[in-house]
């Protein structure tokens, strides 16, 4: 669906572990949004020095109630402002943005891998997968217990859930990727979805490839506009023609086929990227 710019009343805002769960009244965004899409939020209020919007994955988007939810990790000044916003005030949102996860053509068993707040888009995805007849196994991990988001909900929406923490405070000590070899090798597993830090996505992508499984990942690149006009959010992605281009993650992503992303070249300019040869002109 088409993106809209709306002023959305904050219905509620509450801490959930290390995060702030913000519920907004935004019917124009809620209707038609799909898992993996995101919203771009203006931060700082009037006369702010922070010019750029901040992007957040949609955790829920309910066209019936017109509400959406985002899960905000406090990081710098923009998210610092956002977690302080009080119910009743309005947030200026643009969304839904980006390409969502797509469901498999035929049902099977999906493994959903989430790191930290990267689990946010996974619950709606899990519901849709199950509604379409797929089994869902979730692996939810984070640095520590309070940085896990939605473990209880995972137990509801998934057929099985594995939890990991780096410090072992909850679940298995270790990384989500430590759990994957067992899971991805299980009979029936037919597809992988992942959302989380880039290093995790890269590792998941590698494992999915080694098990010959299709894998979709939602990446998180620094974005100035979120709508495809600025070209700041690119990463090297291999096209259908086999050639690599610097592709905008805000409109052609954030969800990509994992095997299309040139993971080890992210943040570099490989010489074989289309148009890289023109760069040394000057």
């Amino acid at each position, binding site marked *: 669906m*088409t993106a809209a710019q709306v002023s959305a009343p904050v219905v509620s805002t509450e801490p959930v572990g290390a995060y702030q769960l913000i519920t907004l009244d935004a019917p124009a965004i809620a209707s038609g949004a799909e898992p993996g899409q995101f919203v771009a939020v203006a931060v700082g209020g009037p006369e702010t020095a922070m*010019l750029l*919007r901040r992007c957040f994955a949609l955790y829920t988007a309910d066209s019936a109630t017109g509400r959406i939810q985002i899960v905000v990790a406090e990081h710098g000044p923009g998210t610092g402002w956002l977690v302080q916003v009080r119910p009743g005030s309005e947030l200026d949102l643009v969304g839904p943005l980006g390409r969502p996860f797509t469901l498999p053509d035929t049902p099977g068993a999906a493994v959903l891998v989430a790191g930290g707040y990267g689990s946010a888009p996974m619950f709606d995805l899990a519901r849709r997968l199950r509604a379409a007849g797929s089994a869902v196994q979730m692996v939810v991990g984070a640095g520590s217990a309070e940085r896990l988001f939605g473990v209880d909900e995972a137990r509801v929406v998934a057929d099985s859930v594995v939890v990991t923490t780096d410090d072992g405070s909850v679940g298995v000590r270790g990384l989500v990727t430590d759990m994957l070899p067992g899971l991805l090798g299980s009979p029936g597993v037919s597809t992988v979805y992942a959302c989380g830090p880039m290093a995790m996505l890269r590792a998941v992508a590698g494992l999915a490839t080694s098990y010959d499984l299709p894998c979709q990942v939602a990446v998180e690149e620094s974005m100035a506009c979120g709508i495809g006009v600025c*070209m700041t959010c690119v990463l090297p992605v291999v096209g259908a023609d086999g050639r690599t281009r610097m592709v905008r993650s805000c409109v052609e992503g954030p969800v990509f086929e994992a095997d299309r992303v040139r993971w080890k070249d992210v*943040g570099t300019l490989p010489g074989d990227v289309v*148009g890289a*040869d*023109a*760069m040394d002109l000057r």
Partner: protein
Amino acid sequence: MATSLAAVTLGNPVLTASGCAAAGRELAPFLDPAHLGAVVTKSVMLRPRSGRATPRMAETPSGMLNSIGLQGPGIDAFLAHDLPWLAERGARAVVSIAGGSVGEFAEVAQRLVGAPGLALLEVNISCPNVASRGQVFACDPMAAADVVRAVKAVTTVPVFAKLSPDVTDIVAIARSCVDAGADGLSLINTLLGTVIDTDTLRPVLTGITGGLSGPAIRPVAVRCVWQVHAALPGVPILGMGGILTGLDALQFVLAGASAVSVGTAVFHDPSAPTRVLAELRAALAARGFPQLTDAIGLAHREPHR
């Protein structure tokens, strides 16, 4: 609110800025490109360009740095896919062109001859994102003039030279471009800036320096428009740099701009150009200006009323 940029009459004076609206299409959910004065497209070069490695941007107080490196599809793909889309929607196109050599500028301009919907060429001689500072045409009056002359020689539409503020004497560059045949001037491109990441202890941008845009630079942009209009009052100016509101746009008009481009503001507010237009219209009406043209350069005249 009609205005003219040299021989071109525009329905209104608010345009997008090059590099801040791609070729218009992505803004369609938020505004009708045909309702703008024109869409200024991302600078296009002869060949496809990958642009730089990321990170390509850094937020700064009331601004941002970008270091895109002129990523683009090249002139042929632009002509095949981008320009026709604008023309079909009835939007006027100001095509921004860039080049690594005088010849490349001329070649790109040549390919654009007769292109549908093309109203004007903006010659980006000032992009500070390219590695070698020595090669920025806009910093040398001679080089700037050479580009303008070469482009003028091949095109029939008006040619605007887009200048960099990072010069000792912007009037000298402006004059040189006008003497070489520029029909008008676009003021200003970004300022060269750097941000150091205090965690990695290295520059944030892969390119080390990038172009500073946004409200932070607005006073510099208004000053450039003021100086150039004072020196060359007959030369039309397309003003830009940090415009967020209609009153910001009015500052540029009063300083001497015949039209304005809204750039970085689009990242904050995708419908900024149409909002700025509505606000500018209201601001002019509230001040009793029957038409935009009555306000152009007015701040140079002694207090009236």
